[in-house]
Protein backbone atom coordinates (compact mmCIF):
# COMPACT_ATOMS: atom_id res chain seq x y z
CA UNK A 1 0.00 0.00 0.00
CA UNK A 2 1.20 3.50 -0.78
CA UNK A 3 2.42 5.40 2.28
CA UNK A 4 0.09 8.41 2.13
CA UNK A 5 -2.91 6.11 1.54
CA UNK A 6 -1.90 4.05 4.59
CA UNK A 7 -1.66 7.16 6.74
CA UNK A 8 -4.97 8.62 5.49
CA UNK A 9 -6.88 5.34 5.58
CA UNK A 10 -5.84 3.92 8.97
CA UNK A 11 -8.77 3.52 11.38
CA UNK A 12 -9.25 1.80 14.74
CA UNK A 13 -10.35 -1.77 13.99
CA UNK A 14 -12.06 -3.59 16.85
CA UNK A 15 -13.68 -6.59 15.13
CA UNK A 16 -11.51 -9.48 13.99
CA UNK A 17 -11.72 -12.83 12.24
CA UNK A 18 -10.81 -15.94 14.26
CA UNK A 19 -7.39 -16.31 12.65
CA UNK A 20 -3.81 -16.07 13.89
CA UNK A 21 -1.39 -13.46 12.50
CA UNK A 22 1.88 -15.22 11.45
CA UNK A 23 5.00 -14.66 13.56
CA UNK A 24 6.88 -13.12 10.61
CA UNK A 25 4.23 -10.42 10.36
CA UNK A 26 4.57 -9.60 14.05
CA UNK A 27 8.34 -9.25 13.55
CA UNK A 28 7.71 -6.88 10.62
CA UNK A 29 5.45 -4.76 12.83
CA UNK A 30 8.15 -4.61 15.50
CA UNK A 31 10.76 -3.61 12.90
CA UNK A 32 8.47 -0.76 11.89
CA UNK A 33 8.07 0.20 15.56
CA UNK A 34 11.81 0.25 16.22
CA UNK A 35 12.47 2.49 13.24
CA UNK A 36 10.59 5.34 14.92
CA UNK A 37 12.55 8.46 15.79
CA UNK A 38 13.44 8.91 19.46
CA UNK A 39 14.95 11.77 21.44
CA UNK A 40 18.76 11.54 21.07
CA UNK A 41 18.10 8.24 19.23
CA UNK A 42 17.90 6.48 22.61
CA UNK A 43 15.28 3.93 21.45
CA UNK A 44 13.93 3.36 24.98
CA UNK A 45 11.26 0.87 23.94
CA UNK A 46 10.35 -2.69 24.81
CA UNK A 47 7.50 -4.81 23.47
CA UNK A 48 5.66 -7.75 24.98
CA UNK A 49 4.00 -9.88 22.31
CA UNK A 50 0.98 -11.71 23.71
CA UNK A 51 -1.03 -14.35 21.86
CA UNK A 52 -2.22 -16.33 24.86
CA UNK A 53 -6.02 -16.08 24.98
CA UNK A 54 -6.09 -16.34 28.78
CA UNK A 55 -3.67 -13.43 29.20
CA UNK A 56 -5.66 -11.29 26.76
CA UNK A 57 -8.87 -12.08 28.66
CA UNK A 58 -7.17 -11.02 31.89
CA UNK A 59 -6.44 -7.60 30.36
CA UNK A 60 -10.17 -7.13 29.74
CA UNK A 61 -10.78 -7.63 33.47
CA UNK A 62 -8.93 -4.43 34.44
CA UNK A 63 -9.05 -2.40 31.20
CA UNK A 64 -12.64 -1.40 30.45
CA UNK A 65 -12.07 -0.47 26.78
CA UNK A 66 -10.27 -3.67 25.80
CA UNK A 67 -13.18 -6.05 25.11
CA UNK A 68 -12.03 -6.54 21.50
CA UNK A 69 -9.01 -8.45 22.85
CA UNK A 70 -11.32 -11.44 23.38
CA UNK A 71 -11.32 -11.89 19.59
CA UNK A 72 -7.88 -10.51 18.79
CA UNK A 73 -5.03 -12.50 17.36
CA UNK A 74 -2.37 -10.67 19.37
CA UNK A 75 -1.82 -7.92 21.88
CA UNK A 76 1.43 -5.98 21.76
CA UNK A 77 2.28 -4.09 24.92
CA UNK A 78 4.47 -1.05 24.19
CA UNK A 79 6.73 -0.07 27.08
CA UNK A 80 9.26 2.62 27.91
CA UNK A 81 12.50 1.95 29.78
CA UNK A 82 12.94 4.82 32.22
CA UNK A 83 16.61 3.92 32.78
CA UNK A 84 17.34 4.48 29.08
CA UNK A 85 15.23 7.63 28.64
CA UNK A 86 15.07 9.33 32.04
CA UNK A 87 12.87 12.28 31.01
CA UNK A 88 9.27 12.28 29.76
CA UNK A 89 10.64 12.00 26.21
CA UNK A 90 10.06 8.24 26.61
CA UNK A 91 6.34 8.99 26.07
CA UNK A 92 7.08 10.71 22.74
CA UNK A 93 9.44 7.92 21.62
CA UNK A 94 7.08 5.05 22.42
CA UNK A 95 4.06 6.89 20.97
CA UNK A 96 5.87 7.31 17.65
CA UNK A 97 6.76 3.59 17.73
CA UNK A 98 3.11 2.75 18.44
CA UNK A 99 1.91 4.82 15.49
CA UNK A 100 4.40 3.00 13.23
CA UNK A 101 2.92 -0.36 14.32
CA UNK A 102 -0.63 0.86 13.59
CA UNK A 103 0.35 2.14 10.14
CA UNK A 104 2.35 -0.97 9.25
CA UNK A 105 -0.54 -3.21 10.35
CA UNK A 106 -2.99 -1.27 8.20
CA UNK A 107 -0.60 -1.23 5.23
CA UNK A 108 -0.27 -5.03 5.40
CA UNK A 109 -4.02 -5.57 5.61
CA UNK A 110 -4.41 -6.11 9.35
CA UNK A 111 -6.57 -4.22 11.81
CA UNK A 112 -5.43 -2.63 15.06
CA UNK A 113 -6.49 -0.33 17.84
CA UNK A 114 -4.43 1.66 20.38
CA UNK A 115 -5.59 1.12 23.97
CA UNK A 116 -4.31 3.77 26.35
CA UNK A 117 -2.59 2.73 29.58
CA UNK A 118 -0.21 5.52 30.68
CA UNK A 119 -0.84 7.83 32.61
CA UNK A 120 -3.71 5.98 34.33
CA UNK A 121 -2.33 4.40 37.51
CA UNK A 122 -4.74 1.43 37.82
CA UNK A 123 -4.10 0.48 34.17
CA UNK A 124 -0.32 0.79 34.60
CA UNK A 125 -0.38 -1.29 37.80
CA UNK A 126 -2.70 -3.92 36.31
CA UNK A 127 -0.46 -4.34 33.26
CA UNK A 128 2.77 -4.40 35.29
CA UNK A 129 1.41 -7.08 37.59
CA UNK A 130 -0.04 -9.31 34.88
CA UNK A 131 3.08 -9.28 32.71
CA UNK A 132 5.74 -9.19 35.43
CA UNK A 133 7.14 -5.83 34.29
CA UNK A 134 10.13 -4.45 36.27
CA UNK A 135 9.95 -1.18 38.22
CA UNK A 136 12.01 0.90 35.77
CA UNK A 137 9.74 0.05 32.83
CA UNK A 138 6.35 1.70 32.21
CA UNK A 139 3.65 0.42 29.86
CA UNK A 140 2.47 3.16 27.48
CA UNK A 141 -0.31 1.29 25.74
CA UNK A 142 -1.64 -2.03 24.50
CA UNK A 143 -2.21 -2.60 20.79
CA UNK A 144 -4.94 -5.07 19.84
CA UNK A 145 -4.32 -6.80 16.50
CA UNK A 146 -6.16 -9.15 14.18
CA UNK A 147 -7.46 -9.92 10.70
CA UNK A 148 -10.15 -7.24 10.18
CA UNK A 149 -13.81 -8.27 10.30
CA UNK A 150 -14.96 -4.70 9.58
CA UNK A 151 -14.02 -2.05 7.04
CA UNK A 152 -14.06 1.64 7.74
CA UNK A 153 -13.68 4.43 5.23
CA UNK A 154 -11.02 7.12 5.75
CA UNK A 155 -12.03 9.90 8.11
CA UNK A 156 -11.99 13.53 7.02
CA UNK A 157 -10.12 14.98 9.97
CA UNK A 158 -8.38 17.90 8.29
CA UNK A 159 -9.41 21.09 10.03
CA UNK A 160 -8.01 24.36 8.59
CA UNK A 161 -8.82 26.14 11.87
CA UNK A 162 -5.98 24.19 13.47
CA UNK A 163 -3.39 25.59 11.06
CA UNK A 164 -1.75 28.94 11.81
CA UNK A 165 0.55 30.86 9.48
CA UNK A 166 3.77 32.10 11.11
CA UNK A 167 2.00 33.02 14.35
CA UNK A 168 -1.04 31.85 16.26
Amino acid at each position, binding site marked *: *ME*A*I*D*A*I*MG*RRSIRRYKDKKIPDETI*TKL*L*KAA*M*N*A*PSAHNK*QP*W*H*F*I*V*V*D*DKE*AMKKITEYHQYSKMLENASHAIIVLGDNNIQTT*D*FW*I*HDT*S*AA*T*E*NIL*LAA*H*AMGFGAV*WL*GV*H*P*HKPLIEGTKKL*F*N*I*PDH*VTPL*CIISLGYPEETKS*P*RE*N*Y*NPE*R*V*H*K*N*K*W
Partner: protein
Amino acid sequence: MVIGFLYPHPTLFSIKLDAMKAILGRRSIRKFTGETIPDTDIKKCLEAAMAAPSACNQQPWHFVVAKDKKTHEKVMEIQPYTKMLEQASVAVVVCADPDLQTCPGFWVQDITAATENLLLAVHAMGYGATWCGLYPDDDRVWKIKELLGLPKQVMPLNVIAIGVPDEEKPPSERYNEERVHYEKW
Protein backbone atom coordinates in the same frame (compact mmCIF):
# COMPACT_ATOMS: atom_id res chain seq x y z
CA MET B 1 23.94 18.00 -8.88
CA VAL B 2 23.96 14.35 -7.81
CA ILE B 3 21.61 14.84 -4.90
CA GLY B 4 19.07 16.50 -7.17
CA PHE B 5 19.13 13.40 -9.31
CA LEU B 6 18.66 11.08 -6.31
CA TYR B 7 15.76 13.18 -5.08
CA PRO B 8 13.70 14.16 -8.10
CA HIS B 9 11.49 17.06 -7.15
CA PRO B 10 8.21 15.57 -5.93
CA THR B 11 6.01 18.06 -7.77
CA LEU B 12 7.67 17.06 -11.03
CA PHE B 13 7.86 13.32 -10.51
CA SER B 14 4.97 12.56 -8.13
CA ILE B 15 6.77 10.00 -5.95
CA LYS B 16 4.67 7.15 -4.63
CA LEU B 17 6.42 5.32 -1.83
CA ASP B 18 5.31 2.02 -0.34
CA ALA B 19 4.16 2.39 3.29
CA MET B 20 6.59 -0.15 4.78
CA LYS B 21 9.47 1.34 2.80
CA ALA B 22 8.50 4.78 4.08
CA ILE B 23 8.40 3.59 7.70
CA LEU B 24 11.65 1.61 7.47
CA GLY B 25 13.49 4.22 5.40
CA ARG B 26 12.60 7.43 7.23
CA ARG B 27 15.65 9.17 8.72
CA SER B 28 16.29 12.58 10.24
CA ILE B 29 17.35 14.86 7.39
CA ARG B 30 19.35 17.90 8.47
CA LYS B 31 20.74 19.18 5.16
CA PHE B 32 18.41 20.98 2.81
CA THR B 33 18.88 22.70 -0.55
CA GLY B 34 17.06 25.86 0.49
CA GLU B 35 14.35 25.29 -2.12
CA THR B 36 10.74 26.11 -1.28
CA ILE B 37 8.13 23.41 -0.77
CA PRO B 38 4.75 24.24 -2.37
CA ASP B 39 1.86 25.01 -0.02
CA THR B 40 -0.20 22.16 -1.47
CA ASP B 41 2.45 19.66 -0.32
CA ILE B 42 2.62 21.20 3.15
CA LYS B 43 -1.15 20.85 3.33
CA LYS B 44 -0.89 17.14 2.44
CA CYS B 45 1.56 16.66 5.29
CA LEU B 46 -0.84 18.38 7.70
CA GLU B 47 -3.70 16.21 6.45
CA ALA B 48 -1.56 13.18 7.28
CA ALA B 49 -0.83 14.59 10.74
CA MET B 50 -4.53 15.14 11.45
CA ALA B 51 -5.35 11.57 10.35
CA ALA B 52 -3.52 10.30 13.47
CA PRO B 53 -5.41 8.42 16.13
CA SER B 54 -6.10 10.24 19.40
CA ALA B 55 -7.63 9.19 22.70
CA CYS B 56 -11.45 9.31 22.32
CA ASN B 57 -10.74 10.89 18.91
CA GLN B 58 -10.20 14.19 20.72
CA GLN B 59 -7.71 15.59 18.17
CA PRO B 60 -6.14 18.15 20.54
CA TRP B 61 -3.62 19.43 17.97
CA HIS B 62 -2.71 22.77 16.40
CA PHE B 63 0.06 23.48 13.89
CA VAL B 64 1.95 26.73 13.44
CA VAL B 65 3.48 26.73 9.96
CA ALA B 66 6.39 29.20 9.89
CA LYS B 67 7.97 30.06 6.56
CA ASP B 68 9.32 33.39 7.74
CA LYS B 69 13.14 33.23 7.96
CA LYS B 70 13.14 35.70 10.87
CA THR B 71 11.02 33.23 12.84
CA HIS B 72 13.43 30.42 11.92
CA GLU B 73 16.34 32.50 13.23
CA LYS B 74 14.57 33.06 16.55
CA VAL B 75 13.71 29.36 16.85
CA MET B 76 17.41 28.55 16.29
CA GLU B 77 18.27 30.82 19.22
CA ILE B 78 15.72 29.12 21.48
CA GLN B 79 16.36 25.47 20.51
CA PRO B 80 20.09 24.90 19.84
CA TYR B 81 19.56 21.73 17.77
CA THR B 82 17.53 23.43 15.04
CA LYS B 83 20.43 24.80 12.95
CA MET B 84 19.10 22.89 9.93
CA LEU B 85 16.36 25.57 9.76
CA GLU B 86 18.85 27.83 7.96
CA GLN B 87 18.20 25.95 4.71
CA ALA B 88 14.75 24.56 5.56
CA SER B 89 11.62 25.60 3.70
CA VAL B 90 9.26 25.52 6.68
CA ALA B 91 9.22 24.98 10.42
CA VAL B 92 6.06 23.35 11.68
CA VAL B 93 5.53 23.79 15.41
CA VAL B 94 3.24 21.01 16.57
CA CYS B 95 1.15 22.14 19.54
CA ALA B 96 -1.45 20.75 21.89
CA ASP B 97 -4.45 22.47 23.39
CA PRO B 98 -5.10 20.33 26.49
CA ASP B 99 -8.48 22.10 26.87
CA LEU B 100 -9.69 20.20 23.78
CA GLN B 101 -9.33 16.89 25.63
CA THR B 102 -12.34 14.73 26.40
CA CYS B 103 -10.09 11.93 27.71
CA PRO B 104 -7.55 13.85 29.82
CA GLY B 105 -3.95 12.74 30.19
CA PHE B 106 -3.30 11.58 26.62
CA TRP B 107 -2.43 14.79 24.80
CA VAL B 108 1.32 14.10 24.60
CA GLN B 109 0.64 10.74 22.95
CA ASP B 110 -1.95 12.22 20.55
CA ILE B 111 0.39 14.98 19.39
CA THR B 112 3.28 12.55 19.00
CA ALA B 113 1.25 10.20 16.79
CA ALA B 114 0.33 13.20 14.62
CA THR B 115 4.01 14.20 14.48
CA GLU B 116 5.09 10.73 13.35
CA ASN B 117 2.43 10.82 10.60
CA LEU B 118 3.75 14.20 9.52
CA LEU B 119 7.36 12.90 9.36
CA LEU B 120 6.34 9.83 7.36
CA ALA B 121 4.29 11.90 4.92
CA VAL B 122 7.21 14.29 4.41
CA HIS B 123 9.53 11.35 3.67
CA ALA B 124 7.00 9.59 1.43
CA MET B 125 6.66 12.75 -0.67
CA GLY B 126 10.41 12.97 -1.20
CA TYR B 127 11.15 15.74 1.29
CA GLY B 128 13.22 15.57 4.45
CA ALA B 129 12.55 16.51 8.07
CA THR B 130 13.98 16.51 11.57
CA TRP B 131 12.01 16.38 14.80
CA CYS B 132 13.36 18.90 17.32
CA GLY B 133 11.96 18.55 20.84
CA LEU B 134 10.50 21.39 22.90
CA TYR B 135 8.18 19.98 25.60
CA PRO B 136 8.96 19.04 28.42
CA ASP B 137 11.90 21.52 28.40
CA ASP B 138 10.32 24.49 30.24
CA ASP B 139 12.73 27.11 28.94
CA ARG B 140 12.16 26.17 25.29
CA VAL B 141 8.39 25.87 25.78
CA TRP B 142 7.97 29.34 27.28
CA LYS B 143 10.22 31.07 24.77
CA ILE B 144 8.41 29.46 21.82
CA LYS B 145 5.04 30.34 23.35
CA GLU B 146 6.11 33.96 23.53
CA LEU B 147 7.62 33.98 20.02
CA LEU B 148 4.51 32.52 18.36
CA GLY B 149 1.93 34.20 20.58
CA LEU B 150 0.42 30.92 21.71
CA PRO B 151 -2.57 31.09 24.07
CA LYS B 152 -1.81 30.39 27.74
CA GLN B 153 -2.93 26.74 27.82
CA VAL B 154 -1.41 25.75 24.44
CA MET B 155 1.81 23.71 24.64
CA PRO B 156 4.36 23.46 21.80
CA LEU B 157 5.70 19.89 21.72
CA ASN B 158 8.20 20.03 18.93
CA VAL B 159 9.49 21.90 15.89
CA ILE B 160 9.66 19.97 12.64
CA ALA B 161 12.17 21.41 10.18
CA ILE B 162 11.11 20.47 6.65
CA GLY B 163 12.95 21.02 3.37
CA VAL B 164 14.11 19.62 0.07
CA PRO B 165 16.86 17.12 1.04
CA ASP B 166 20.51 17.79 0.28
CA GLU B 167 21.72 14.53 1.81
CA GLU B 168 20.82 10.89 1.41
CA LYS B 169 20.78 8.41 4.28
CA PRO B 170 20.30 4.66 3.94
CA PRO B 171 17.66 2.99 6.15
CA SER B 172 19.09 2.31 9.61
CA GLU B 173 18.81 -1.19 11.08
CA ARG B 174 17.33 -0.59 14.49
CA TYR B 175 15.55 -3.90 15.11
CA ASN B 176 16.75 -5.31 18.41
CA GLU B 177 15.47 -8.75 19.38
CA GLU B 178 16.45 -8.14 23.03
CA ARG B 179 13.64 -5.60 23.29
CA VAL B 180 10.99 -8.17 22.37
CA HIS B 181 9.46 -10.31 25.10
CA TYR B 182 7.02 -13.11 24.49
CA GLU B 183 3.95 -13.57 26.71
CA LYS B 184 5.66 -12.04 29.77
CA TRP B 185 8.66 -9.83 30.55
